[in-house]
């Protein structure tokens, strides 16, 4: 087997940096991690072969600091840079800077990123390639008056979106004319901060839409294939929470049509590497191009689970100039896969949570995959994305996969920080999710009902008893340490301790 590269630098952190390291290690490619001062102890630093500190915690001074990353690549003689997702992954300037520095950017050309990164230009390109787009304006809008006029023309509710970005940042849905300008202000500011581009545009809101996306691969020789779809409609705050493949919504005919449209788009763009065409699909199974993510997606593992293809390995070989190693007919789909994002977040507010992870128990066993960056003692702060890990399961069919995910979740324990695991469990219990009939509004509209239906463990009683025993233990150990000896009554768990001692003496 020929290695795609001898050594690459990974310009990212967290689970995706680890994901890339794992494939590189298998292929015999040496890896260089970069880290901010907040990440000195992070798992990606420990798992990589080499590691370079690139600056203080704020992303702008580290993971977004192109020059420092290029310096690190040169200093370590890396041949290529894998950008992961987020950070510099969809930054055309960075892709161009790599090219100019003689480094391979593991992703598309700066021109492709620019075309797709400018959401307005992308809409035009897709229209030209014969791919349907969501109705909306043709250009970005700066002026408040124009904004109000265009919104009225499209008709409320309208969606404000950032020209420069995706991933839920800079997006605001506006239901009433009076909220338009304040929403636009926040969207512009967020967009400016996230994408260094504060321009926004307007789209019609597709009612009860499903978010369905197609994974594509394109090589440097004109080759293009798709690897099926992913349904990503369980979202809150425009952030995906659960993804699955195949989509429980679309039929074989739609799947075929979407796949073909996606491959057509890749070919017409001359797109290089892994990418994702996001579509909105309405209840009549009409599909509209939403945007293209010119990078690996967070949810790529579900595609890997049903196809057996290692998408990161394919990225590396494509970037090394190889023709696609797989033909469309090699891609076969087996079973059903679901991914749940384990974020540090308060399940009541969906807002990011912080804390120190006291210990780590991760699920395992048949059909269970855990892509994480967690370790005991990890401090979860506010500098970066709150995603801690992804729990991915495979099952022979959708019901088996759902049952397996539920079962695996019961083995996950990250005490010290609140996570989205509770929300995910609630979603899994919901009849609409179980039936597969859910759209992008599902989570936010149903969450209160979901919370009401929280399955109560035996176990408010158990909780009460456990708390009392824990408290007793605490007081007794306190007595032992600070009291005057004779009054010590020992541990609340003492019976256990004594039995354990007896055993050891046997």
């Amino acid at each position, binding site marked *: 087997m020929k290695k795609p590269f001898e050594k690459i630098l990974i310009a990212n952190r967290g689970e995706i940096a680890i994901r890339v390291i794992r494939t590189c290690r298998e292929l015999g490619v040496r890896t260089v991690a970069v880290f901010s001062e907040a990440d000195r102890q992070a798992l990606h630093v420990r798992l990589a072969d080499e590691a370079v500190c690139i600056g203080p915690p704020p992303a702008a001074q580290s993971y977004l600091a192109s020059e420092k990353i290029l310096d690190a690549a040169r200093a370590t003689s890396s041949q290529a840079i894998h950008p992961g997702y987020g950070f510099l992954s969809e930054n055309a300037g960075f892709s161009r800077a790599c090219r100019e520095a003689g480094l391979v950017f593991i992703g598309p050309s700066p021109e492709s990123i620019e075309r797709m990164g400018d959401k307005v230009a992308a809409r035009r390109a897709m229209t030209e390639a014969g791919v349907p787009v969501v109705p909306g304006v043709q250009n970005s809008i700066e002026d408040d008056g124009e904004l109000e006029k265009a919104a009225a023309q499209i008709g409320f509710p309208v969606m404000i979106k950032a020209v420069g970005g995706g991933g839920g940042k800079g997006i605001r849905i506006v239901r009433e004319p009076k909220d338009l300008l304040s929403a636009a202000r926040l969207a512009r500011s967020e967009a400016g901060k996230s994408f260094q581009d504060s321009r926004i545009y307007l789209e019609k809101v597709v009612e009860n839409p499903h978010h369905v996306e197609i994974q594509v691969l394109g090589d440097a020789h004109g080759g293009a294939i798709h690897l099926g779809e992913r349904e990503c409609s369980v979202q809150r705050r425009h952030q995906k929470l659960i993804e699955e493949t195949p989509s429980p919504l679309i039929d074989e005919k739609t799947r075929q049509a979407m796949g073909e449209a996606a491959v057509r788009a890749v070919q017409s763009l001359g797109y290089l590497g892994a990418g994702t065409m996001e579509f909105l699909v309405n209840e009549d199974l009409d599909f509209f191009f939403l945007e293209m993510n010119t990078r690996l997606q967070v949810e790529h593992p579900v595609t890997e689970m049903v196809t057996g293809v290692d998408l990161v390995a394919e990225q590396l070989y494509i970037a090394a100039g190889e023709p696609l190693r797989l033909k469309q007919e090699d891609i076969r789909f087996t079973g059903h896969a679901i991914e749940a994002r384990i974020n540090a977040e308060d399940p009541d507010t969906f807002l990011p949570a912080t804390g120190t992870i006291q210990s780590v128990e991760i699920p395992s066993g048949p059909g269970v995959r855990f892509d994480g960056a967690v370790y005991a003692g990890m401090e979860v702060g506010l500098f970066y994305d709150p995603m801690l890990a992804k729990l991915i399961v495979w099952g022979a069919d959708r019901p088996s996969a759902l049952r397996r995910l539920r079962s695996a979740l019961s083995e996950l324990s990250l*005490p010290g920080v609140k996570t989205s695991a509770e929300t995910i469990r609630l979603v899994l219990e919901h009849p609409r999710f179980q039936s597969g009939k859910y759209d992008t509004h599902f989570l936010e509209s149903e969450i209160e009902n979901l919370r009401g239906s929280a399955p109560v*463990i035996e176990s408010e009683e158990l*909780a009460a008893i456990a708390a009392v025993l824990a408290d007793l233990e605490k007081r007794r150990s306190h007595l032992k340490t600070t009291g005057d000896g004779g009054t010590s009554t020992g541990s609340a768990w003492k019976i256990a301790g004594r039995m354990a001692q007896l055993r050891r003496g046997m």
Partner: protein
Amino acid sequence: MKYTVSVRGAEIEVELSETDSGWRARVGDRELQIDVERLGRSLQHSFLVDGRSWPVMVERKEARRGAKYVLGVRGERTEALVVDEREKAAAAFDALAGGGQSGETVVESVIPGIVNKVMVEVGDTVAPGQPLLIVEAMKMENEISCESGGVVSKIHVEAGVTVNSGDPLVTLGPEPE
């Protein structure tokens, strides 16, 4: 020994006694046999309650009154506050003394993050729903607004400051009549 534990809004009375093989707990009219072991120095415990097995992750949190515990059982987290009689009395006294403090409202941060912008000044009169400041977390900007109107009497933070959930941001006094 008798304890009161507050779990998900309900007050549960637990009576505990030690037995040869562990503990006996009386909760309401149920009596349960409990065998419990802590796994080394970890937070993980193994409870056998009348033969049923419950792995319980026990985290202790700070609380104003009593001792608060977060109990993780098979991925589910439940908070429980253990209150003893003295603490209950103190809590009752606090309630009587009045938490409202002469019509003042404190707007708290609902999120940990960094204050990005403060949009009001001391002395400003604000309307219900008016945005007061922006707190940024994970590159998402969140407007913090007040539920009721009033006059800004104190601003506890400034732009650039890191805040945790529950930290006071702005105090509003009553509107002049």
